[in-house]
């Protein structure tokens, strides 16, 4: 069985969407992770809960909320913004859905990565005269590095497999918004079992590689060599 154009299209769309989604969720997730690990502020537990919400809500619910947000009359719709963000039923929508769904994983994993850096090391850095920014860049970040890479990889994996929110926001348009997850669903509906299995095989290979690397990084971050 050869790999056809439709398969390659779905693979291309998936990698594109997941990569851009990771680029979006990375800075937000890492910043949230740092905030939750190192700062005390009013309403912290509310933020913690909100960040975790996409993990447990039905993805279609998140998708629907995004749909309402970006609809013409929504808070981020064309009427409010004064221009059309062109999110719905486009690959941008798929990116947004995937980024939203993977943010909790990125933030929570990043938080653990920061928490594993002893705060007293940062205090020592500051008392030796390093600025806070310097302490972050030269001490915290390098020591949390492995955990943070794991966080991004996990976010990327979650984006790869996103289905529920994506189909609501971006639809299922072959070659444009149809990711591997959506294509597998299509193939099953249409009885193209061979093709579905091929796509599943590709998904397994990518996910296996990512998770394998994540596990190794996290083991090394815990100092188990």
């Amino acid at each position, binding site marked *: 069985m050869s790999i056809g154009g439709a398969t390659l299209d779905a693979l291309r769309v998936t990698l594109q969407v997941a990569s851009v989604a990771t680029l979006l969720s990375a800075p937000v997730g890492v910043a949230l992770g740092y905030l939750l690990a190192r700062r005390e502020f009013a309403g912290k537990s509310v933020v913690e809960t909100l960040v975790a919400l996409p993990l447990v809500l039905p993805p279609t619910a998140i998708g629907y909320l995004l749909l309402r947000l970006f609809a013409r009359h929504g808070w981020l719709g064309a009427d409010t913004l004064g221009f059309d963000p062109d999110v719905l039923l486009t690959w941008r929508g798929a990116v947004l859905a995937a980024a939203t769904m993977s943010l909790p994983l990125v933030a929570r994993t990043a938080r653990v990565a920061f928490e594993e850096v002893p705060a007293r090391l940062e205090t020592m850095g500051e*008392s*030796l*005269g390093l600025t806070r920014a310097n302490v972050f860049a030269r001490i915290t970040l390098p020591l949390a590095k492995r955990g943070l890479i794991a966080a991004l990889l996990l976010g990327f994996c979650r984006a790869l497999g996103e289905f529920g929110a994506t189909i609501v926001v971006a639809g299922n348009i072959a070659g444009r918004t149809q990711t591997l997850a959506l294509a597998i669903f299509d193939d099953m509906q249409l009885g193209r079992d061979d093709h579905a299995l091929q796509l599943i095989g590709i998904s397994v290979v990518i996910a296996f590689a990512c998770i394998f690397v994540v596990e190794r990084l996290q083991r090394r971050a815990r100092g188990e060599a």
Partner: protein
Amino acid sequence: MSAPGLELRLRLPLAPFDLDVEFATSARTLGVFGPSGAGKTSLLEAVAGWREVEAGAVRFNGDTWLDTELGVRTAPSQRGVGYVPQDLLLFPHWSVERNVLAGVERGGAADVERVLAVLELGDLRARDIETISGGEKQRVALARALCSQPKLLLLDEPLGALDRALRRRILPYLLRVRDEFRVPLVLVSHDATEVAALCDEVVLLEAGRVVARGAPSVVFASDEGWRAVGDEFENVLTGAVASVGASTATIALGDALLEVPRSALEVGQRAVVSVRADDVLIATERPRGLSARNVLAARIERVFGESEARVLARLERDGAAMWIDLTSGAIRELELRPEREVFLVIKTRSCRVLSARGE
């Protein structure tokens, strides 16, 4: 206020008691001594600015670092202290040299090469922190603190994490730091030998309170102090090197002479020598026909304890205090009591030279 030295008034809650201390001292080297859990580390952290203080003030050489009534709280980096905490807090992803240079961030013109030389770290500078030994890490942390050009050095149990043999190998480095850099220092310790060797003054802390304060030889001889001294005490004696032979050297303590193993001593140097309290014998008459080379006239000052007993004697010529651990049976049979004149018998090999430096 512009009194030189350290002025402390602190109250902060600890479990199961509060730390509540108030004292001022102009000692150049201050020991904070007491059993584990007495509040020593909390006191040091309050001076370093690492810990919230409920009420109190910290002043050093006239600078106010903390005053809760005036609402003054100077940031740790602005206090100019070199803090070496018990867990050292070396940066594990950096080399020895980079760790040491982190101290220069604040200080500017530190003589890094001299610090590395005094602490014998030159050969280790390129090594990863994770690959060096515990004693070496201790020296790196000291070097980093010294390179930050501290006005005051704060050392928390610098020998605490090390085993006994290693402790005695690090002590000479601390003596060197004290003598070569002449930085005022506060040393937290539960090791009386360390305090006796390094400190001009000691504060005895128990359950958050100061129970005695003064010169180590006085505090350790007090009713409050002698129990806290603990086992394995080593007497620390300082004198001038009088002569150096093939395998031994003599140290003048006043005009008494102490024969010690030769080490790397030169005539005229000041030498610090330690002798374990249970390595000293007491004779009521000057002994003859004895292989031990040192027989020093002394006068008993106090006798402590019942089962495991301890005698405090003062050398006739030098006035230095010596602790001697004996059994109570020996004390009874020899009728040892205050004011009695005795002879202290010490083998050459029981003397350990900790440090020596030119005058």
